[in-house]
């Protein structure tokens, strides 16, 4: 049963095929009937993913899973599930009716891509996974055919990603040139810090940095996030970024472990840039999607503090933070999407006096924002704290200082939203409405996650057990 090693991908492929077939037989006017079964199926996959199973390598090392990667995949599926839940409301809209299945299928495809990317054993598999995860997303970003912004987002995404993957490939090619193999475990020994390899690494790095949207490779982020449908935005900002972070961390810790000194500095510089620039831009946003885009850029900068920890602690904290980040960011995006679906309002000013009309939504939003800002006792606090711990363990107190000062800026703009919702009064506030069950389930999951993950330490210990021996 070697195939069990690949169970996540196989299951996803399976349900993708099933859904395709169902989609074929469904008559045009009953397309949205596919939502429920797909949710159920995916939920089943998510749960199956958690079942214990073997880990190992396939295809002569091109594909390899470790308990850690399995865990990562599970995290991604959870996030994906929440995203699906949140997008139901939007899918049921008139203009999307006939594209429901496309949406779901494309989304599933990207997930498959990411999972392959996560468990890739060599650069070819990695590249394929990457592209499989990127190209459908471009299509999804341009999903709303009748909106110019959406199309623009699609263009920006596809072109910049194409360029970045070109540069990434160039880097890979040079690594291949200097090492002579594409298999990670053989590349490790070949890396010795020759100038060409440095060049290669930088190219590779910028390719990845594009996915994680690290300054200065982040510029596409805001526009695409704003233009794309909200659920795609949240997917981009959480799942695909998370996946990229995870694989990138793994690669740094394994493939480039020989040249730690080199990438450490790169990370150091870029993380400072990312935090600061991201925050500075987020300060002045009025559109919430754009706002969250920049906030997620800043968060990526914080994640680098964990990566720079380069130890089991670093890996654990990164994983942990990504988990927390999934719930927090999805919580925020969930609220935004619900409101935007019902009222089409997306700017901060529209949220004036929201608490007095929709208290629960506002509270969820506040919780999510506080979690992003790192306010106890919400999970985000623990996530950030541990990231800082990881960095401080390397004695990088200056970096930590810059980071904590950045948290103040970020707190400022998160509070701006809270201010709009709680403090401001509006003569035309968003009227009270009852959001649909799916979104509420999604939001409930996020809230539960945000509250439990932090206070309930076993989660952290659980992750820590898997990251053993990664570094």
């Amino acid at each position, binding site marked *: 049963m070697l195939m069990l090693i690949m169970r996540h991908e196989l299951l996803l492929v399976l349900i993708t095929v099933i859904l395709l077939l169902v989609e074929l037989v469904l008559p045009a006017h009953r397309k949205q009937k596919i939502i429920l079964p797909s949710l159920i199926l995916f939920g089943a996959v998510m749960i199956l993913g958690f079942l214990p199973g073997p880990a190992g390598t396939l295809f002569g090392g091109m594909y390899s899973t470790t308990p850690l990667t399995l865990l990562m995949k599970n995290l991604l599926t959870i996030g994906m599930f929440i995203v699906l839940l949140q997008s139901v409301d939007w899918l049921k809209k008139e203009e999307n009716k006939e594209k429901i299945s496309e949406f779901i299928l494309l989304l599933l495809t990207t997930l498959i891509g990411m999972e392959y990317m996560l468990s890739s054993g060599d650069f070819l598999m990695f590249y394929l996974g990457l592209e499989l995860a990127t*190209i459908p997303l471009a299509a999804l970003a341009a999903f709303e055919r009748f909106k110019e912004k959406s199309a623009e987002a699609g263009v920006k995404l596809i072109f910049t990603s194409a360029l970045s*993957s*070109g540069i990434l490939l160039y880097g890979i090619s040079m690594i291949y040139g200097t090492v002579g193999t*594409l298999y990670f475990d053989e590349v490790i020994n070949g890396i010795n810090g020759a100038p060409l390899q440095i060049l290669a690494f930088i190219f590779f790095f910028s390719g990845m940095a594009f996915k994680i949207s690290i300054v200065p490779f982040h510029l596409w982020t805001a526009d695409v996030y704003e233009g794309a449908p909200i659920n795609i935005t949240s997917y981009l900002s959480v799942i695909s970024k998370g996946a990229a972070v995870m694989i990138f961390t793994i690669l740094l810790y394994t493939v480039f472990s020989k040249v730690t000194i080199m990438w450490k500095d790169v990370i150091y510089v870029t993380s400072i840039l990312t935090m600061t620039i991201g925050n500075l831009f987020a300060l002045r946003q009025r559109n919430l999607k754009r706002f969250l885009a920049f906030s997620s850029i800043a968060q990526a900068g914080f994640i680098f503090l964990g990566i720079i920890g380069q130890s089991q602690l670093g890996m654990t904290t990164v994983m942990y933070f990504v988990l927390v980040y999934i719930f927090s960011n999805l919580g925020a995006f969930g609220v935004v999407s619900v409101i935007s679906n019902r009222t089409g309002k997306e700017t901060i000013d529209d949220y004036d006096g929201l608490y007095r009309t929709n208290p629960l939504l506002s509270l969820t939003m506040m919780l999510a924002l506080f979690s992003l800002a790192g306010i106890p006792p919400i999970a985000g606090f623990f996530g950030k704290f541990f990231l800082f711990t990881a960095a401080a363990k390397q004695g990088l107190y200056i970096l930590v200082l810059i980071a904590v000062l950045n948290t103040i800026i970020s707190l400022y703009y998160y509070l701006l939203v809270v201010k709009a919702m709680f403090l401001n009064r509006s003569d035309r506030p968003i009227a009270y409405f009852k959001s649909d069950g799916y979104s509420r389930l999604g939001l409930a999951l996020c809230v539960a996650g945000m509250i439990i993950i932090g206070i309930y330490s076993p989660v952290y210990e659980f992750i820590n057990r898997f990251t053993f021996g990664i570094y």
Partner: protein
Amino acid sequence: MFEGVPLSWFLILSTVMFFVGVYGFLVRKNLITMLMSIELILNSVCINFVAFNKILYPEHMEGMFFTIFIIAVAAAEASVAIAIIINIYRRIVNIDVEKMDEMKY
């Protein structure tokens, strides 16, 4: 037929192609042309792979496979890109990249 051609030539060629591609991507205003520049970049990468594989590491065919996959993926990419471009064209009867700055700052 390539016997005796030193590696450096290929590398120079690929590098030139790469930067031509980047240059084109940066200056050409027409989306289709930009797409073509992307293809240039990818092809420069392909040349790299093939050259390395053929001259330095002839024992395995990794480079070759990678090249093939790159071509395939590039095709997929191009198709999606063109689809989006068409959609854009439907919206604003124009495919000038500079027109696409509705979202900024």
